[in-house]
């Protein structure tokens, strides 16, 4: 049951939209939601028309609203509101992150988006992942990014934060992303509406207990039981990355003339 | 400073022993010291005084530099001879003297008016040093307060009254420090 279905059911059966029957996608709210969102995003991206940004914000909100209205409902208003609060935080913050000019703000909005994602993880009965996302992603990775940005960013807004690669890539990127999302929406919407019986994992038990007090124990058992080799590989990867990062920094510190790199790069044509 | 300057003599510090390198013994030592002070203070052995209730004790009032006074001689006359040496010596230019012909036999001039701006004074004691007749002195009065700027400009009468107030506690420095009588 969703809003579109609700409206269609309420509306007269003899709807004049015969073409709606032949092109069902045009009748769906999510299609128009994605189009509106894509247009809004296009207007909001840097390097555009200043007034257009406000229009873009409006269009983006409208698109998100349409999409949210068209998606299947949970059947419980509190859950619905809570879910879209978290998802809305994640998505809106992500959109702002890619459309603000200042890279510092990008990092901060990305961190807010991460908070939303972490909330969604908690909501999916994955509290460990939610908390680890905040601790590792927001706490360590994004802070390190901020650190480098603050050290490396020249004062004020730079040229390359205000422009894109000419006029071409922006519409094409947005069209590609819209096509991707649209296809996925229809693929997801056409999933069989009857849920398959959850297959119980032989080691970890089923989801019914995954939010229960032994969630951590289950997680630990799966992680260090089934996926032990992967853990070892991930640990090795971390070590290699650590050594690699240090090697890059030490190797890159070779004394060089200040403008050598610049000329080398500019003189290629 | 350049580290390779030949003028610099580098002194080797003594090597730390194992106890020093282990850091914790030294930390314990430091903690013991602070705890000792903490204990003594809680027991009441502080070096501060609770000022309004308890007057601080000034150990050497003769060399303390507080509020000025104008000394009087045995006959109750102001000792000052209006020579302007103090006003000249004063680095803050806070002394203002009007000297007139003296009505007495033993000196030529005396100050008709003698004002010190106590807010401008830096309490350096130069006036006291400069005075040839030990007329101006700094007392050990430290709690100088007032409600207006005008109040803090001391005239001759005020300065003489400071003398009357403090003469019993603090003898004239001429006697104590071997100046001219």
């Amino acid at each position, binding site marked *: 049951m969703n809003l579109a279905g609700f409206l269609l059911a309420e509306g007269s059966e003899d709807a004049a939209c015969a073409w709606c029957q032949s092109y069902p996608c045009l009748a769906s709210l999510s299609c128009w939601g994605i189009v509106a969102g894509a247009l809004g995003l296009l207007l909001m991206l840097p390097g555009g028309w200043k007034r257009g940004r406000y229009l873009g914000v409006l269009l983006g909100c409208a698109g998100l609203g349409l999409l949210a209205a068209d998606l299947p409902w949970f059947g419980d208003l509190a859950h619905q509101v809570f879910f879209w609060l978290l998802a809305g935080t994640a998505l809106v913050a992500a959109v702002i992150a*890619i459309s603000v000019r200042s890279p510092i703000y990008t990092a901060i909005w990305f961190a807010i988006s991460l908070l939303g*994602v972490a909330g969604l993880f908690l909501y999916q009965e994955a509290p460990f992942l939610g908390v680890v996302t905040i601790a590792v*992603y927001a706490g360590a990775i994004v802070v390190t990014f901020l650190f480098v940005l603050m050290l*490396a960013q020249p004062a004020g807004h730079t040229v390359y934060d205000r422009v894109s690669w000419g006029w071409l890539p922006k519409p094409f990127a947005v069209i590609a992303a819209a096509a991707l999302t649209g296809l996925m929406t229809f693929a997801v919407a056409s999933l069989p509406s009857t849920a398959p019986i*959850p297959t119980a994992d032989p080691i970890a038990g089923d989801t019914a207990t995954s939010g229960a007090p032994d969630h951590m124990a289950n997680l630990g058992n*799966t992680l260090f039981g089934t996926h032990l080799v992967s853990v070892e590989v991930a640990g090795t990867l971390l070590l290699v*990355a650590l050594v690699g990062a*240090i090697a890059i*920094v030490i190797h890159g510190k070779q004394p060089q003339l200040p403008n050598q790199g610049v000329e080398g790069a500019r003189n290629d044509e | 400073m350049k580290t390779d300057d030949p003028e610099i003599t580098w002194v080797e510090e003594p090597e730390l022993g194992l106890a020093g390198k282990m850091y914790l013994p030294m930390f314990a030592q430091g903690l013991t010291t602070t705890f000792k002070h903490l204990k003594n203070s809680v027991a009441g052995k502080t070096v501060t005084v609770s000022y309004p209730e308890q007057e601080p004790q000034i150990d050497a009032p003769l060399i303390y530099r507080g509020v000025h006074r104008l000394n009087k001689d045995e006959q109750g006359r102001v000792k000052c001879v209006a020579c302007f040496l103090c006003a000249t010596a004063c680095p803050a230019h806070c002394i203002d003297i009007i000297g007139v012909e003296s009505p007495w036999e033993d000196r030529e001039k005396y100050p008709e008016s003698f004002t010190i701006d106590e807010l401008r004074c830096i309490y350096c004691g130069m006036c006291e040093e400069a005075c040839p007749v030990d007329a101006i002195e700094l007392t050990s009065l430290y709690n100088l307060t007032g409600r207006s700027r005008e109040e803090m400009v001391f005239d001759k009468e005020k300065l003489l009254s400071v003398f009357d107030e403090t003469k019993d506690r603090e003898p004239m420095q001429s006697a104590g420090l071997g100046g001219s009588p």
Partner: protein
Amino acid sequence: MNEMALLQNYLIVGGLLFAIGLIGFLVRRNMIVMFLCAEMMLQGISLSLVAFGRFHGNLGGQMMVLFIITVAACEAAIALALILMLFQRSQTLDIAFWQNLREEGQPRFVDQQIPEEIEDEREWPQLTPAGVEPELDLEQQRHRTRV
């Protein structure tokens, strides 16, 4: 609660995050911002994985996300080291600066027009350097109190 609806919603939100990250990666030119966009795509995928894991009732999806976080941490370490090196050589975070790494025979990208800065640049008062007597204008000097 409708499990199926929950899964569908999560997949769409994950897909949207991925798409937004994709657009950001293709459109932005600041190296660090591009990198953050790649991380955003990883977040979208993590969301879908967790949703699938819960729907199927096993912890495999969460395991995948844990490894994604690990890989992201490694990636961040290496990428930041590289970006710092590139910045030290070029003094800019612009990825277009390094376009001589492009393929053979491709034309060079040159910015057609650079839009004006929207915010106006303001001038901040500055202190006189040490050891130089500050020059005060007459107006200011007249208002100064003399000590």
